[in-house]
């Protein structure tokens, strides 16, 4: 047994040597987990972090190479040919770009040739989406040569015309548009059959997921053609795969696509589809409890539209045919606050929200300063804290600007409410140099003698990355040390990453699923280097 200490020492030396070799690899990812060492957050094969609420370890995000985020002084161009299909898609039918750590470099495409400028050495994710072709995604590793070539082999996709009809043979989208629903029908292709709804989305549709893309015509007249198709589904792999028809995030029908199939036809009972729509009742009252007549109510998606109503004399309103999902909920009336929140509506929900209280309009004025106390011009967004709950996003549809002396006035604030106010300067050419600041401020009918200040700090980019492909939605809530929210990012299945700009400091990171169940709760330390956190 006396040999053990010596063996441990020897193994430690070997470990150090191997670790050094690992780190010296070009474009090396962080080292794998070891029982004795620290684990970087995006290490392949790393020990999964504890995900129970309040019990996780400190997230020590792995530092990214700062050079990667800086604009490269010696720019590299990647160019090449698009090959493999004849005829090639048109230049404007190719969507090709390289990305890495929040940097996105689009390609110029001309007659089957492409070029991407502004790249730097290392690994980039290349994504090429071309009409009629399979989605091409690959990593490319660039060396220091100023011009590098890589031809891209396109593969013809199986393309199926899509027809979505009611049981009576009408076009479902046309019938839904009679209820004010102009979009939101979408087909997705998946390898496994989708058996339930997806997580709610604030967007009008869930976007392209899985193993294909649903391309729909932008010609409004096409919708009037009773025999017209509802777009095409391009598959990234050969059938069999499963196709699901969604109304926003709600599953209406699914079927298996067989090899050799020439079209995709869904027949959906119109009543069954419209039964998925929600109904919302509410009464709008003022701070004294008196009903507010002619209050404007809106339940909309991120793209607008949605259901709208005015309250009657008794302050009540009923909104019918509301698309289920995550809705932006806004109420406004004369001399009152701009009430802005979110609602998640389940399919076929009939909800009575009870009384929605509109506070009296108040002024929330303040000043934004830099670390030296100098006024700074910037943009501001604000969210009423008592109207927000996870996993909902913060309010991002209303903006105010601080003037050149840093003075600002937020509009539509309600007397007595507390707001999370986020201030952000415009960085030079993108996010570099961006300064951000947060404050939790109260709005009152009588503004304080000394206006509150928001201090801006240099911001560090925190990348949020979902490693696993899949159909899960995550909401990431960044809280300050007092556990008050300062930022929220919702990462839907169509995007597997997002980013947040935060001043250096200690935070708490909460991760929720799309239904609002908290998956993890952990401290977060943000330094001066860009960092990545892997989810969940």
């Amino acid at each position, binding site marked *: 047994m006396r040999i053990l*200490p010596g063996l441990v020492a020897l*193994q430690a030396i*070997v470990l150090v040597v191997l670790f050094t070799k690992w780190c010296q690899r070009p474009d090396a990812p962080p080292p794998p987990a070891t*029982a004795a060492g620290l684990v970087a957050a995006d290490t392949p094969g790393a020990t999964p972090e504890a995900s129970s609420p309040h019990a996780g370890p400190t997230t020590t995000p792995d530092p990214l190479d700062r050079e990667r985020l800086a604009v490269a002084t010696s720019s590299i161009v990647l160019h090449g040919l698009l090959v493999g299909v004849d005829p090639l898609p048109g230049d404007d039918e190719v969507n090709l770009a390289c990305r890495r750590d929040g940097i996105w470099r689009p390609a110029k495409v001309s007659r089957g040739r492409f070029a991407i400028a502004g790249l730097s050495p290392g690994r980039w994710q290349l994504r090429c989406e071309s009409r009629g072709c399979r989605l091409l995604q690959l990593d490319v590793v660039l060396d220091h040569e100023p011009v590098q070539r*890589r031809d891209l082999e396109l593969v013809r996709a199986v393309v199926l015309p899509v027809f979505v009809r009611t049981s009576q043979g009408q076009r479902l989208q046309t019938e839904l548009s009679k209820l004010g629903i102009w979009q939101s029908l979408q087909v997705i292709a998946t390898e496994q059959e989708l058996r339930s709804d997806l997580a709610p989305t604030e967007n009008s549709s869930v976007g392209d997921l899985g193993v294909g893309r649903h391309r729909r015509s932008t010609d409004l007249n096409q919708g009037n053609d009773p025999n017209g198709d509802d777009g095409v589904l391009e598959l990234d792999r050969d059938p069999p795969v499963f196709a699901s028809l969604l109304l926003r995030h709600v599953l209406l029908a699914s079927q298996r696509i067989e090899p050799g199939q020439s079209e995709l036809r869904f027949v959906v009972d119109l009543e069954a589809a419209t039964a998925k729509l929600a109904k919302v009742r509410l009464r709008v009252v003022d701070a004294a409890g008196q009903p507010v007549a002619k209050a404007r109510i809106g339940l909309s998606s991120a793209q607008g539209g949605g259901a709208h109503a005015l309250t009657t004399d008794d302050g009540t309103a009923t909104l019918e045919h509301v698309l289920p999902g995550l809705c932006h909920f806004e109420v406004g009336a004369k001399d009152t606050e701009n009430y802005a929140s979110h609602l998640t509506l389940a399919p076929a929900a009939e909800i009575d929200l009870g009384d929605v209280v509109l506070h009296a309009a108040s002024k929330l004025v303040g000043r934004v300063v830099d670390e030296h106390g100098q006024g700074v011009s*910037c943009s501001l967004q604000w969210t009423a804290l008592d109207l927000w709950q996870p996993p909902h996003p913060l309010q991002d549809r209303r903006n105010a600007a601080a003037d050149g002396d840093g003075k600002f006035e937020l509009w539509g604030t309600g007397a007595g409410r507390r707001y999370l106010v986020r201030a952000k300067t*415009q960085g030079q050419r993108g996010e570099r140099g961006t300064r951000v600041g947060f404050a939790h401020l109260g709005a009152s009918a009588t503004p304080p003698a000394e206006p509150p200040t928001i201090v801006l700090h240099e911001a560090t980019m925190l990348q949020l990355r979902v490693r696993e492909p899949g159909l899960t939605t995550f909401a990431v809530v960044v809280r300050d040390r007092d556990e008050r929210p300062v930022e929220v990012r919702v990462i839907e299945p169509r995007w597997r990453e997002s980013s947040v700009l935060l001043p250096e400091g200690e935070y708490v990171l909460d991760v929720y699923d799309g239904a609002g169940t908290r998956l993890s709760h952990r401290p977060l330390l943000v330094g001066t280097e860009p960092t990545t956190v892997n989810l969940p």
Partner: protein
Amino acid sequence: MKSRATRAWLVLNIAEAAGIVLLLQALAAAPAAAESDAPLPPAAGNPATVAPRSSTTAEPPPNQAAKTTATPPTPPTTAPPATPATDDLGTLLLGTLQWPPGVDPNHLQVALYAGEATKALLTASLSGDQNFAFPGLDAGDYRLTTRGDGTRPFERWITIPPGTDVVRVDLPLIASWIVKVALLAPDGKPLAEALKGQPELLGSIFDGPVQVIASWQPLPAQLPFSDQRQTPFTVGQWTSARGLPGRGNSDLPARIAGTLELRQDQPAVIAAVLRECVLTQVPVEVGQQEVTLTVDPAQMRAKLATVRLQIVDATTRAPLADAKVGLNDSQSWRQPTAVGQDGVLLQERLLPGRYQLTVQVADRVAPPLTVDLVPGRLTDLGQIPVAAPFVLRATVTGGDDGAELNVTLQPLDAIEVPGTGRRSLRLGVRKRELKVELWPGRYRLRITGKGLGAAREFDTHQLGLAALAIELQTEPELQLDSTQLAEPALLVLTDGRGVVWCDRWITWQSRWNQQLPPGEYRWSLRGLDGNERAGAVMVAAAGGKLVLQ
């Protein structure tokens, strides 16, 4: 104790061993992964494709240098030796935009044109980067242009020789002359603050109705009317500090209303205007960084205009109470206003300028009119007649059925309503069939598509129910080049019969094409100072070119 220590050593030993195995596995896998991700070697026979080994003679050709006098002089691009081209990739044109320290240009765009073509072959919007690359080019002459906030428009001719793989052109941008403008009320307060609580003076524009413009010459008190929301008569670009968040002058002190960007270094005049009405103007010297314009809100109020009109039946002259009237510039739309029981509409506190007048009334139409509202005055239009419309039908033949067609109907009859002008109607054509309700009278119909066009004059009183048959003919293009036009000028183009084909103020510097039937045209250019020059230009079957200067 001893066994506990041994157990600890054993655990540490196993943990280390596991770490070694993991690292060894990862290192063993690494070469394969690196291999599969490595950049492809140059294709066989294409040794030049991985590095720029050739470049262009990027100096403008002698005959083209004169055409670029509006752009700053640029040093010639260095030209490394050329190498044979690969047939498949064409030539890769790449480069970097370089700007002086302290300048942070926004919204940069690089565009590549084939020769003198007015439509860009390729464009790149640079955001967060200063590099561009255009692939797959053939040998030939090209124009490379850049534009962006804070920099002067830049143009360079380049020649791509045959057999060149890569051409590198770095473009040194030149910063514009930026003048910070303080817009103050007479009491020294920022004008925006002084206007708070005076909605009639704030208008519907988010940064207020006062615009700041520049000219190389002193301005008259009243510029020619335009139907745009803000006057186009300026040689500078105004960026309000009170613009949308995230865009604009984020670091300006609050007293500064915005910045004016001037793209030439010469003495100028800077003015505050309400549309085309000049409120105040001051001279600025080259390099001057800041200027103060004092505007009295009372002066603004005194410039607001009033309009009165009465909608009547064209035959009986009886007032119509069920009409709604719209007064809009060409970039805005406001809800039409209902007239009174006597058919009268009186609108006050309007910004002076040109408006498009529209009348909504059941089963009747009004003549297509523009209205010029004089500053500080009541413009009484008297009676505006409305009548049953003539339904014009036309079928269009010739060319590709799918081609997009633009239709303009220019009224030709004299306008009987004082204070008004004739308003052209712009329409779209669906499936080659045109149907439009018109105020009866004479019109000139003009249809243009891709290289095709037709023109026809008609009088609705002489047309029957049958559709007009319009056949499109191939038409050449006249390239108009205003890059050397120092100041706004009114361009009028007429053919041999006196028909006017163009009558508009040119307030911009660029090249564009106007499709015209072949033939000889007279042109005239008249500046704000009234000076006029004229000449003739031939538009042959292959086209023509007219440089405005």
